[in-house]
């Protein structure tokens, strides 16, 4: 076979092979990681980049929170290190959130891929490692007021030199962790990932030849960019605004910062411009987002309005012009604390989705819950243990369908990343007492918001707790007559049965042995007037226990017998 058919097939095989290389690296990281959250659930991010730092491919199971971070942090390595001075087997690491990183615990690891003595490509991996210091175990430090309290900062430095571990750095990492074995296990997993992907890239270059591989990649990126521009040109031209108000940063009680976006769509091939300049100033607490994270949120939201099958590579980034104001919540001055950036990133997504849904009204959604991360730890014991996990709430209702339950914000990718209970109990001194869908937590509406969940965990030892809950003061908003969802809560049940309230964003909170942590996540907002909801849908909700008989009557005027 020859001619255009063969070329097409070869191009396709090549693209899939690139994707599989990133995919495999991601799987290797997950399979060899030591953090309970990564190993039991969450996906690792892995990618291939080219010599210039452009993103070539990203593992498709990647946590979308990390989508832009590899791409945004490689330039820091290229700035600080001379390509000519690099050697095969070098591996670099960094986490500086002001240069493309996320926060201390999210380590970004890169390995150059050499052909004929020249760096041609990069493989990169990224996960949240177990613990890297800071004033609260596991990297959840809502009370941090600067980046120094969040953990060890790493500029772009060599982790391996010519295939040999850089012992000095390994020792620094281990000494700065409350869980040195685990964190070094996680670092090993990240390195295993970049090694596997580099090996695959070398194999591909061997098979296709460097020049053909390079040309194939060039076509791939150009094709994605063309598709992205064509899709963006389909949006109705106009200027669309959106905003989202955050509960607060946990430290400044009188301030509820707002993320604001102004989206300009021209209707031609120029792409889209998202201007976040009017977003409020940076916060004292840790809810600020480094630019790579803010960009991740913006790009995710834009991708919800174009053909989803466009591959995630540099071609998606080029047509999206994003403007942040230095000193705002989305691109803060150092040394702002940035560990809680998921709050602001969610705000970015919600604001952009809200704005752009005016260009495509069928994609209107009510607001969703925000992730509830928490850590449980015994950091000062001889045998330290640590769990970083999270819970998800309901999604906002969509035009035409109810919001899904217990599955987090749209960009979080689903619930499979929440660890199952049994393996956690097998390795940690905790016992789950309950996990259930929360009836009535979804906002009423023609289409109902998704339900939140209630989780109860008994700690068997004295335990230190950190929580970073959002949508606790301000519930997810309803839309177009739909009602708000129910806000989340967090509290402790003491041994005598009394309840002790917890701050929504707090660290170094103490729990006595046998106390129970209760977390409830928020329900999504409803969309459309509740009175317009189909009677059968209300009856089904009551039958299935999603809505109580009382609430059904109060919101929908429907009398039901309720579940057995």
């Amino acid at each position, binding site marked *: 076979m020859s001619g255009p058919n063969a070329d097409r097939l070869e191009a396709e095989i090549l693209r899939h092979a690139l994707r599989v290389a990133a995919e495999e690296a991601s799987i290797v990281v997950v399979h060899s990681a030591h953090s309970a959250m990564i190993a039991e659930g969450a996906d690792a991010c892995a990618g291939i980049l080219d010599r210039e730092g452009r993103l070539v491919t990203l593992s498709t*199971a990647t946590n979308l929170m990390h989508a832009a971070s590899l791409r945004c942090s490689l330039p820091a390595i290229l700035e600080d290190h001379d390509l000519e001075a690099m050697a095969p087997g070098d591996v670099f690491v960094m986490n500086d959130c002001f240069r493309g990183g996320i926060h201390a615990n999210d380590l970004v690891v890169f390995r150059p891929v050499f052909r004929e003595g020249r760096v041609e490509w990069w493989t990169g991996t990224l996960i949240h490692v177990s613990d890297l210091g800071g004033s609260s175990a596991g990297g959840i430090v809502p009370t941090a007021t600067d980046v120094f309290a969040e953990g060890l900062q790493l500029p772009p430095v060599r982790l391996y030199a010519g295939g040999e571990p850089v012992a000095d750095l390994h020792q620094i990492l281990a000494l700065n962790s409350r869980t040195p074995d685990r964190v070094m296990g996680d670092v090993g997993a990240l390195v295993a990932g970049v090694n596997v992907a580099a090996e695959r890239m070398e194999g591909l270059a061997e098979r296709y030849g460097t020049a053909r591989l390079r040309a194939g990649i060039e076509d791939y990126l150009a094709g994605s960019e063309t598709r992205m521009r064509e899709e963006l040109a389909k949006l109705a031209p106009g200027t669309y605004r959106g905003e989202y108000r955050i509960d607060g940063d946990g430290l400044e009680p009188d301030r509820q910062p707002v993320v604001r976006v102004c989206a300009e769509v021209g209707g031609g091939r120029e792409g889209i411009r998202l201007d976040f300049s009017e977003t409020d100033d940076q916060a004292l607490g840790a809810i600020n987002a480094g630019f790579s994270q803010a960009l991740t949120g913006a790009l995710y939201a834009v991708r919800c309005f174009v053909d989803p099958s466009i591959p995630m590579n540099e071609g998606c980034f080029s047509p999206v012009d994003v403007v942040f104001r230095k000193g705002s919540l989305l691109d803060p001055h150092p040394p702002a604390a940035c560990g809680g950036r998921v709050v602001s990133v969610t705000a970015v997504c919600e604001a952009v989705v809200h704005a752009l849904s005016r260009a495509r009204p069928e994609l209107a959604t009510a607001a969703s819950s925000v992730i509830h991360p928490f850590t449980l730890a015994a950091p000062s014991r001889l045998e330290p243990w640590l769990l970083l996990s999270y819970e998800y709430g309901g999604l906002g209702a969509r035009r035409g369908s109810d919001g899904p339950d217990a599955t987090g914000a749209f960009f979080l*990718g689903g619930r499979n990343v929440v660890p*199952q209970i049994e393996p956690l109990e097998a390795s940690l001194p905790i016992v789950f007492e*309950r996990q*259930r869908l929360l009836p009535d937590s979804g906002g009423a509406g023609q289409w109902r918001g998704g339900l939140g969940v209630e989780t109860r965990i008994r700690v068997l030892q004295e335990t230190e707790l950190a929580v970073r809950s959002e949508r606790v003061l301000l519930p997810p908003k309803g839309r177009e007559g739909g009602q708000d969802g129910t806000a989340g809560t967090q509290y402790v049940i003491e041994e005598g049965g009394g309840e002790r309230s917890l701050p929504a964003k707090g660290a170094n909170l103490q729990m006595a042995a046998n106390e129970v942590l209760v977390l409830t996540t928020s329900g999504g907002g409803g969309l459309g007037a509740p009175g317009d909801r189909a009677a059968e849908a209300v009856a089904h909700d009551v039958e299935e226990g999603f809505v109580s008989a009382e609430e059904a009557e109060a919101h929908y005027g429907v009398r039901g017998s309720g*579940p*057995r």
Partner: protein
Amino acid sequence: MSEACVLGADIGGTFTDVVLTRGDGRLHVAKQLTSPEAPERSVLEAVGRVLAEAAIAPGEIERVVHGTTLATNAVIERKGARVAFVTTEGFGDLLRIGREARVEDDRYDLHFAPAPPPLERAAIFELPERVSARGEVLRPVAPPGLEAVVEGVRAYAPEAVAICLLHAYAHPGHEEALEEALRAAMPDVVVVRSSRVHPEMREFDRASTTLFTAEVAPLMARYLARLASGLESLGIRAPLQIMESSGGVMAASVAAERAVATLESGGAAGVMAAARFAGFYEKSRVISFDMGGTTAKAGVVEKGRPAVVRELHVGGRGSFGGRRAGTGMPIKTPTIDLAEVGAGGGSIGWLDPEGVLRVGPRSAGASPGPACYGQGGLEPTVTDANLVLGYLSPENFADGRFALDPAPARRALEDRIASPLGVSVERAAWAMHEAASASMASAIHVVTVQRGLDPRDHTLVAFGGAGPMHVVGIAREFGIDQVIAPTHAGVASAIGMQATDLTAEHGLTYLVSSDALSPAEARARFAEVEVAARRKMGVGDDEEGLEVGRLVDARFVGQAHEVSIPLASFDVIGEIPARFRTRYAELYGVAPAGRVEFAALRVRLRRPVDRPPLVDQVASASEAPPMEQRLAWFGPEAPVETGVVRRADFRPGVALSGPVIIEGSVETTVVPPGWNVRVDLAASLVIERDR
């Protein structure tokens, strides 16, 4: 003197294939339309036919191997039994909360639809009880709680009950107590507990596996009882074995409780057949392509072995054939890695609202079947198109046992496709043939291109009734130069399953530090696992002649994913950590220093079967076979005068140039212009691109 004959019976959506292999390797085959409402009937009729043809006594049948899609259909159509689900108090929403991942394109879909909850609220019951991960009882089962659950379940009136309590793998006692109470109260209800079905850690995976087992177990039990009594009335008392998704078989006696292990059995049988041919032809890379009446399946065999995965996903999504981890509902059972598309001979062609021609996934099945079967089918199928194109003969289909009527086939094509599109019937037929080929090619795409494998490095082995008719066009699409259509390709799955071994695998979560497992303790623990594995296989504790493989799942302390390390003898249990470290370094390229722990013990049992000879050895000939001519279409413009030979007349030593059609008793092979075909000494057709 018994002749030691083996029967293979494979039920597909359209046809039921039965093959009787005699001790000397001679085959008798029967293809029969499947009776969907009572699948055993078509099996029994076909068995009767091969017995009559072979003229042997039923007592000479030594073994019956059966592949069934009963469980598959029940799961896909959600038509399983009415099931009540019991779990630990506080966790009733376990399966409703779910763990579904949004992958790939779904991640950006603001309208994505989560899978509907697998259970209605009324079917869920919570038992007051709790055990720890170490198997200690934190809260015992008390009679009032037990009675309340039994009462509730009874009132729900289920056909089956699925029990999954937290940490039941470490302490099955509570599940056993509930099982006993339920059986006592409801003797006719099937009770399935997780500690028996899948005693491994991770409650969602275990609960899902248990739930699906309960949904299909009653159906499978009833069906197999009908089949066994039918076989007995034919005088066949040989052991009945059921094909598994893993590529092995199990005893029918355990097939109800292990029905989820049959979900991909049809595809597995085909890939196993391809694996045998790969070995026979010493091909290290083979793509198996199996096209029947309802679906087409593709798998890859590398170095003689198909890849086996440890779980499958019901309703899975994403690329890699919808097998993305985290999508759909997991079922923990070893499964051959394959891709399936809803395109077969019976697939219906239709025009979508925009006037674009589509083929499948709806199939005319066995009833009414394609329009040309003359059973009242009014919609055009791929088979109808192939008849109009001249590939199939109205008289010689299935050795002339089954006449095909071109008139209703042409009418269906005219009414539904040609006339609305304003084209000729032949052009419509050609478009349908091409659309079906493209759809089937996507299955091959999934197992090769999407995994970064180059299909051009592979030989394509084609079988199934319709496989050899489409395969060359598909090979051309991928740049594959050689295709093999084995003898009796139309019933290859039924032949393939006759040569599969009796196998079972059983795992048990067993968390222990690597230095805390003595050889004596290992021996005792593995003995328990082996007992369970033997039960899964349906053989007794003292049955001999089994190959026993033991594996220890090892990991570094703190990890959640293990590497299975084979254990050659209990005395060397102390060497496992070192072997694990070596293997780990090979797999991941890093060598962590951490402590090693064991997470699970696994036993794999295999009882090899005597394989009937693979192929008919045939004598070569120097003369070309008698050839008829008819018009066939190899493009939309005009038909070509095409040679037609009988496969039985076609002998090694002669090569024919395309276009040529080779009519076999259970399949038709189409060789288009630009390709040539010969028969090798094993009676396979070898089709190659002209050089």
